[in-house]
């Protein structure tokens, strides 16, 4: 395997968790819910998933429990912002703090434990092709699932009747309610989906990316996923592009650090974040202010019955 090939493969690994978390948050935001708790839900997914994988000695169990943990945390958020019509920004921030703290507690006994790599796809002939073989036909299941998720969300939003309902609810919840659309139910499902995705992204970090657990291992990836949704103007395909841009920048700066190019490593570590912010600013300047944001994003909904 050449260095170039290795870099391409690590880019995919670095981008996948961002993509999964971002696509979940994107669906929640299209329904009009801003959940700033992605970081916390990812941390919970990573900790619980890792604990379950060790405990049951099963990757599948780890994945299932990680998804459930993210979903459970999202359910708490849903209760606050839908049931009690609480402020979404405040509730989301609290969720992140809760998730980070709780994950540290749950993960503590597992610090130092390691998992074996999960199996990668192997199609004889195809996987062995030079350069593109491993890249396209030799990834783990998460990578293919993340791409399938993007496709599914694209089709759901554009074609499905329920996708139309979701967009309508996110655009104007008062009108949606007046037409008899189930505003709260739609939002509940969207929040839970976002939680499940964040949990899955977390599991990916602890079971595939590092293969161990350490406190705070999400390292702001939840926040990056949130920024990606805005950066992508709430469009799934742009989110895919954004996630891979960030992943590429992350991997390249790591190689730059290793290559001793004479810049302080702290500065290089900041490159992906700076690149994402620049791309965000550039896009919003080109496209005009906040165009494309769901009309009811962040607004609590209280039906007047």
């Amino acid at each position: 395997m050449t260095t170039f090939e290795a870099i391409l493969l690590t880019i995919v690994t670095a981008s996948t968790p961002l993509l999964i978390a971002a696509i979940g948050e994107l669906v929640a935001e299209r329904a009009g819910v801003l959940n700033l708790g992605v970081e916390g839900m990812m941390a919970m997914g990573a900790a619980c998933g890792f604990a379950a994988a060790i405990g049951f000695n099963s990757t599948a169990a780890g994945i299932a429990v990680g998804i459930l943990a993210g979903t459970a945390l999202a359910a708490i958020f849903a209760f606050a912002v839908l049931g009690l019509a609480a402020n979404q920004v405040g509730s989301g921030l609290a969720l992140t703090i809760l998730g980070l703290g709780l994950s540290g507690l749950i993960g503590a006994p597992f610090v130092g434990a390691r998992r074996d790599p999960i199996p990668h796809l192997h199609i004889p002939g195809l996987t062995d092709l030079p350069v593109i073989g491993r890249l396209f036909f030799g990834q783990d299941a998460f990578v293919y699932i993340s791409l399938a998720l993007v496709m599914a969300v694209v089709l759901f939003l554009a074609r499905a009747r329920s996708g139309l309902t979701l967009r309508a609810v996110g655009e104007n919840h008062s009108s949606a309610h007046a037409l008899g659309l189930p505003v709260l139910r739609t939002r509940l499902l969207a929040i839970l989906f976002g939680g499940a995705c964040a949990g899955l992204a977390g599991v990916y970090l602890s079971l595939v990316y590092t293969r161990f657990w350490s406190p705070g291992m999400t390292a702001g990836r939840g926040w990056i996923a949130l920024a990606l949704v805005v950066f992508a103007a709430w469009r799934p395909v742009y989110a895919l592009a954004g996630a891979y841009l960030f992943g590429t920048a992350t991997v390249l700066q790591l190689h730059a650090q290793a290559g001793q190019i004479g810049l302080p490593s702290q500065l290089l570590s900041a490159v992906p974040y700076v690149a994402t912010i620049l791309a965000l600013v550039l896009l919003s300047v080109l496209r005009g202010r906040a165009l494309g944001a769901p009309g009811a994003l962040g607004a609590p909904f209280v039906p007047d019955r």
Partner: protein
Amino acid sequence: MTQRSGDPVTTGQDVDTPLVALRGIAKRYGDLLANDGIDLAIRPGEIHALLGENGAGKSTLVKILYGVVEPTAGEIVWEGRPVAIGSPVEARRLGIGMVFQHFSLFDQLTVAENIAVALSGRESLRDMRRRLVEVSRAYGLGLEPDRAVWTLSAGERQRIEIVRCLLQDPKLIVLDEPTSVLTPQEADRLFETLERLAGEGRAILYISHKLEEVRRLCRTATVLRNGRVVATLDPRRRSAREIAALMVGSEVGEVKPHAGSGSGAEALAVRGLTLPAANPHEWTLKDIELAVRKGEVSGIAGIAGSGQSELFAALSGERLAPARDSVAIAGTDCGHIGIDGRRRLGAAFVPEERLGHAAVPTHRLSENALLSHHATGEVARGGVVALGPARRLAGSIVAALDVRTPSPDPQARQLSGGNLQKFVVGREIIRNPALLVVDQPTWGVDAGAARLIRQALVDLAAGGAAVLVISQDLDELFEISDRIAVIHRGEISEALPTAAWTREEIGLAMMGAAHAA
């Protein structure tokens, strides 16, 4: 659409049996009885008017009928059977269609998507699109299925609502203030459509406070006041004045015109003002020429969203003009000066939005008085608020414009729409400005408050001030303006004497069909 025009909609129904009867409907919100024992019956093929002032309980009643709000007491009888309408989906299943006043549309979705979202059927988007085109053609309601809604005019938006309603083949169509955003021509087209629908045997509940159109369209009218039915009558057999008195509970006077000629000096002169749109939802102001003289009321007519807010922002200084000489107040070029500087030149401004733009909802009236007086008045000195004078100022505004307040210095949001509007207009008038620019002075306020505000504007002009009124209400402009110009897509026509305009001409100009010569 399975229904062919001309087929009776109701089958096996005696024409005399009401399609729907409301009995003793009541709705309580805390201490407020929004509806109090309302009885109402509508027959198939009937266009029934529901008349009343803002706050009389019309909207609440309609929401109950459409299942959005649950009544506290009373029963709804549909085709002879008592029913409980728990949600809009159930209402639609019964055959009730609704055209909302503030359109229940989704700006970022297309026309077809907006319609599909309200239909609960399993029909594919493609079939729905085909039916949409068929129905809109059959009723002469032209619509392009793939346009995004935010690019459409108010008339087109209303057509979406009507087509959406018709695709469900309703027996009863409820229209809430349908003409409030339409040009006279668009309103005429709407009336033709409604008469045709009634001819097919569909019942129509027509909610309005505009008496002339109700007298033209309806044979039965139910008048509401303070949540109660005060009369059920044939609007063609009563005078508009008589019905208005029933709605308001007392006689509404007319605005006394002033004999001013408006021959004074130009208090406001706008020359070649061009201002690019700040965002894609706005219009670019193109080469605006406008002059308002002392002693006259000048009006600007236009359909909602034709560039009025953009023009107001440019005149008030909320947005600065690229060239300093493109706006002049009292002979001083001020295109580059902000709103405070323009106030110091003797100008005053009342924006369209009462809550959030003209007034801060959670601030007291005295604090709200500060908002526009801080630069010119005695209420703030050296950065320190003078509370006493601010309270006295708020008190004199309240007294001058007869603002009804629940307590001596309440928060702005505690006032009703009409009273708050009187306050924000009064706040500017009390400064005795040389120029007053007011955007939609009586939008959504009751007839009594509207008359008072219009009289205050006319009196201000009679006292020698220049008044510029931007309004969507043609009746208002014809009543108080000396001259009227029309704004369309960010361009303004020449201002002509009010007597030189007919309603038809002005309606055409509002739709952009060539500026009337």
